[in-house]
């Protein structure tokens, strides 16, 4: 019997920007390897939570442990363990980078400036692209010329190239076509079976729910945390999204009907 390993422990974290508190007293923990979905309405602090976990934002209060390492005391260590996949819309298209170059950037950034890519780095780049299901004919294409789904896969490949144990994905399905969405979800499930956990911020859990181990329902504080069928109840969803939300029950899980918008 393996000892249960905790990928992530968040203890009473309060965080925000310029003194404005966005998140208050957030606590939860996830075992490794698993898939955690963070959901909540716009402005609930989902992205803020991701940024706090990866160390882009220092919490005002509370502690975060990644595989037992206190995140703020071991930033360089936890950045080796976690890879971040930003929202596709936040990535600039005015840099003429090829797909393979973007993935290599992710690899080289962790080796420090002035280092020269080795054979191993090039090989890791190709493997990551294969793993993330980016077809070979796109490797030399310009990123800005790809479809939304492919761009998302490239960003996942960039995150995988450093062989992390946790992926943090911010809205990986926004403006991604349905088949690619399916492929990405199956990819994340496959990664889980190979020992990579995922933390996914999304406003739409529907396509993902059967692969989800934990759901964190967030609205500036934790509304509910646990298994999908425990968290996704009409009562919780109404608490998170407001009383006016419509809730649809299907196979023991409730869905909030909130329309497909995101700020």
């Amino acid at each position, binding site marked *: 019997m393996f000892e249960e390993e905790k990928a992530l422990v968040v203890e009473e974290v309060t965080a925000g920007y310029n003194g404005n508190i966005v998140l208050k007293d957030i606590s939860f923990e996830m075992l490794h390897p698993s898939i955690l979905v963070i959901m909540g309405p716009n402005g609930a602090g989902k992205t803020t939570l991701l940024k706090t976990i990866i160390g882009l934002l220092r919490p005002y209060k509370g502690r975060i442990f990644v595989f037992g390492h206190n995140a703020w005391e071991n930033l360089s260590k936890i950045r080796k363990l976690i890879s971040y996949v930003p929202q596709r819309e936040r990535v*600039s298209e005015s*840099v003429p980078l090829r797909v393979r170059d973007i993935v290599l950037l992710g690899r080289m*950034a962790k080796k420090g400036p002035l280092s020269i890519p080795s054979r191993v780095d090039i090989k890791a780049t190709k493997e990551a692209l294969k793993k993330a299901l980016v077809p070979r004919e796109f490797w030399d294409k310009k990123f800005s010329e790809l479809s939304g789904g492919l761009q998302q896969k490239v960003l996942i490949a960039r995150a995988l190239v450093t062989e992390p144990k946790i992926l943090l994905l911010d809205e990986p399905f926004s403006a991604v076509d349905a088949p690619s969405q399916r492929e990405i979800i199956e990819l994340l499930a496959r990664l889980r079976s190979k020992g990579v956990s995922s933390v996914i911020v999304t406003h739409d859990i529907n396509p993902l729910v059967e692969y989800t181990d934990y759901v964190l329902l967030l609205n500036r504080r934790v509304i509910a945390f646990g298994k999908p069928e425990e968290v996704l109840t009409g009562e919780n969803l109404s608490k998170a999204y407001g009383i006016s939300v419509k809730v649809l029950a299907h196979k023991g899980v409730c869905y909030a009907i909130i329309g497909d918008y995101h700020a």
Partner: protein
Amino acid sequence: MPDILALLSDPFVLRAIIAIFLASMISATAGNLTIFRGLSFLIATVAHAAMAGAAFAIFLQEYSLIPITPILGASLFGISISLFLGVIGNRMSGERLEAITGIAFALSMSLAILFISLIKEYAVQAWGLIMGDLLLLTLSDVLLMIITTMVIVFISILLMREFLFISFDPEGAEASGLKTFAYHILMLLLISLSVVVLIKAVGAILVYVIMIIPAATANRLANKPSSTMYIAFIISLFSGLFGLFLALYVDVAPSALIGIIATLIYLAITLRRS
């Protein structure tokens, strides 16, 4: 038709050619960084701040107040405005940064006009800042250009990967452990230094042309950063040399012709591609 060899042996023409070559190197490196980072508006702001700084220095000289050279005045004003924008703009949304850059642009322009109108005796010198003195460069001007260009090109190439990453995806870069703020400031320093260096040769207005147009054109054509650098270099060099020689025949300011040629190349390529 005048003798080309005789022209080339003229030290002023020779220095102008060297300056065009150096400007093309800056255009290929710092110019491309500006496009990657989406900072083209910053160029105009820094250029006018630098012009204000140079005019201020000339004004101080004229009244024998403090002896600072125009290039020093230009550097001080140009670099401080870009650092100011860089520091306050680091955590700001694109639209807000653009608004503040616009205000800084208006202020620098007003200061430049203020100081230029205060200058009486040396008005020609101030005019040179606007138009550039490509054919009046002295040996020490060129030496200064060579040194700064080498520094700019060296640092740009050495840290290109980091600059690319923070331009492409600042959050992802920071999450990967890059010191994004330090690289961001370094990029701004390189860009503003480039603007200051180029002002003497091509003037405040055309700095924008030399820094932005070749790189923007290259960006439409190339699919990787190294190609954008070669293409921007070739476009700058071609428009520079062609503009210079044309200016020698028709006797107009070379910087104006260089600007027109570079713009025509951009238009031709954009129209062909669209």
